[in-house]
């Protein structure tokens, strides 16, 4: 059942992105930024946590989960350290994704030649 939810939620998010891309002049860069901001906003009132429980991996794959995880880390650190936690926490949960993207791209950029 969770597979169906994952399919529906991830597909729904991508379809909205595609509709925005086709019907406005925004570039893919604008749309990914927009979705990150939406994800960060949805986490403020713990809505995104409920979506993750409902859709599982389907909610964690789209870029919205990136914003959700940044807000999540900030709020968790804010509970512990107070207002400075907002600066300590943002990359607690997302650092794996960012570091992996940077390290893997760097290594592959050294190995592979660019193609046209």
């Amino acid at each position, binding site marked *: 059942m969770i597979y169906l939810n994952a*399919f529906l939620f991830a597909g729904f998010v991508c379809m909205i992105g595609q509709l925005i891309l086709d019907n406005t002049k925004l570039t893919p860069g604008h749309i990914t930024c927009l979705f990150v901001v939406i994800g960060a906003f949805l986490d403020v009132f713990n809505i995104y946590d409920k979506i993750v429980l409902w859709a599982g991996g389907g*909610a964690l794959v*789209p870029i919205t989960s990136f914003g959700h995880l940044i807000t999540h880390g900030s709020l968790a650190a804010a509970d512990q350290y107070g207002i400075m936690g907002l600066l300590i926490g943002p990359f607690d949960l997302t650092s794996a*994704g960012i570091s992996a993207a940077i390290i*893997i791209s760097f290594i592959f950029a050294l190995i592979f030649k660019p193609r046209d």
Partner: protein
Amino acid sequence: MEKNKYKQIVDKVSPKEDKLYNAIIAFLIGGLMGIIGQFLIEFYSYKFGIPTKEATVCMIVTLIFFSCLFTSLGFFDKLVSFAKCGLIIPITGFAHATQSAALEYKKEGLVTGIGANMLKLSGAVVIFGVVSAYVFSLIRMLLGVI
């Protein structure tokens, strides 16, 4: 008058994109990515007996690895131009942007090329994520205090 004519000709010649078709393809491919994500989480947590939270990290790293590899091998661009937002909105789009920028600027050197330009496209995602998360968490903290 000339301009209108020109516009009509351009409209006639430029290929029309079927918006419904694009949306359905994005829905199917994006949903497939969601299923793959859920499958990988369950696979890692059953196979290695690790908690779901760490399995999630493994899943994200796996997806990033494969999209970087396919971009380097050269056929991920074709997949993206077919699926469009179906592959741009998932985390694969982030990795694809990073990898293609790194490959594109390789010829300008390690530091001024790869180092300076790798996050050219995907840096926007990180910056907007951090700034918006800071603002929203601050609002929530202030609401909680008052």
